[in-house]
């Protein structure tokens, strides 16, 4: 089954990936071929099988809800492209109209 272009564009938007038309066409072919390979799993009867949530014996790792040591603000902000005072600066996310 070949993925249609609309699906590729929809998934790219969900993933926040800007793709060129050439990339979209390539991905249409490559993802279809990988999905074909994956479809072999349909032959496995898994009706009575629980999904794996994790592979080791640990469960419910809890800790006291107390503040611990944290990195200094300047260390956390030093890699941010744009900052102002103690904040990371971003473009407006809400419509201002």
């Amino acid at each position, binding site marked *: 089954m070949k993925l249609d272009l609309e699906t590729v564009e929809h998934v790219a938007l969900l993933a*926040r990936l800007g*793709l060129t038309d050439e*990339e979209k066409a390539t991905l249409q072919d490559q993802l279809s071929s990988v999905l074909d390979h994956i479809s072999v*799993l349909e032959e496995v009867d898994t009706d009575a099988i629980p999904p794996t949530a994790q*592979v*080791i014996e640990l469960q419910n790792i809890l800790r006291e809800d107390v503040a611990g040591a944290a990195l200094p603000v300047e260390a956390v902000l030093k890699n941010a492209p744009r900052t102002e005072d103690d904040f990371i600066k971003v473009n407006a996310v809400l419509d201002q109209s």
Partner: protein
Amino acid sequence: MTELTDLTLAAARDLLDGREISAVELADAHLERIATVDEKVQAFITVMADQARTMAADADAAIAAGEAQPLTGIPVALKDILCTVDAPTTAASKLLEGFVSPYDATVVKRLRDARAVFVGKTNTDEFAMGSSTENSAFFTTKNPWGLDRVPGGSSGGSSAAVAAREAIVSLGSDTGGSIRQPAGFCGIVGMKPTYGRVSRYGLIAFASSLDQIGPFARTVEDAAMLLGTISGHDTNDATSSPRDVPDYRAALGEDLTGVKLGVVTEWTGQEGVEPGVQAACEAAYDTYAELGAELVPISLDYAKYALPTYYITAPAEASANLARFDGIKYGMSIDAGDVLESYLRTRGEGFGAEVKRRIMLGTYALSTGYYDAYYVKAQKVRTLIKRDFDTAFERVDAIVAPTSPTVAFSIGDRTDDPLAMYLADIFTIPANMAGLPGIAIPCGFSEDLPVSIQVLGPAFGEEITLKVAHAYERASGWHERRPEPVA
């Protein structure tokens, strides 16, 4: 005396502790070796020459003060996906170029506390996605045994660095074989510990239910020493196990009398396995029989589904993990005016083709209407794969199998066909799906390139896994060969 760059960790430890060599001399010898051969091998993204000399001087002081630990003064290379405060961490991606982490990964901190010496950060496929380092945004690392061949991947830089004597040991990460496969291609030892044995804090996450950090070395004993240093519980990684860390070096032995080793029936004579690989592995099984081990045929019925299961699970988890690279908090950032357009352009231009392919695949598999059919289905099949191993380990102590179906392939051979590239991992992926420890060790040569077998153990069975690997290494002596192209 042996050249300093040919020393094993164990031998270097004795010489350092006996004050016959200094950590500074050892570091300088490796930095000089990097300066000589890395032009050809290209194992390193960042060489940490200044840091290494400072760390070596600190190590000498610690040794003089009687505070030496197994890794004190030992030159170590780090896969460039492990965060370090004193060198950039790129994940071999344009998206993280220039990023310097505000904290050390736990494994890095443990090595730092042990006064190990970091010689540099090594090349990898971008965000550890690949089997050859050809997906690095910067360059492809060359295999020290044949410079036109890939070193394997994703941890190909870490494995080539150790094979080419640019570091005594190194660290990599293994999500679907990314330590064992490159170790095999480069003719050295590489180990993926049990899921939970080593903290992943500060490892740039790829697929969180599979990722595990582990050692590369030229002998099993050296791998055991490094594993002991990096293992153990960490409150910063909720999946790390509180189990005690045994003395892995003490677990090594040469007598395998009474040890039961499983040989996977379905993997013998499997299509796609090169005859030279098959022959070397069968000779290795014969050696195991001579060492007193009992070889037991076992069946892993569902292992053939491990690859498709992996190619749902890993991309799905990656698509979630890589959402953090948004151009806002760190790394490359393209300001295109509004928020959505900035995300699209930063991620579209920052990520390479394979990373985009996997994010797309994972996002598709998790999207509305497909989640049950893909992700949940894969996790159910994963249960069956794990049960196969559980059943097998009721009958055997460890499993021996080929590490990869082929020797190192030529650079450029598989870049146009993602599925062919993915097939390089058919024998390594099942252990990740089940969370089990596995170690790859050299078992001969085919076309003058190294062949490797892997030993898989039960969960937290690192000791028997290492013991079985060590016994073969001592009996076979394959680890003593050196790669001629970088002689």
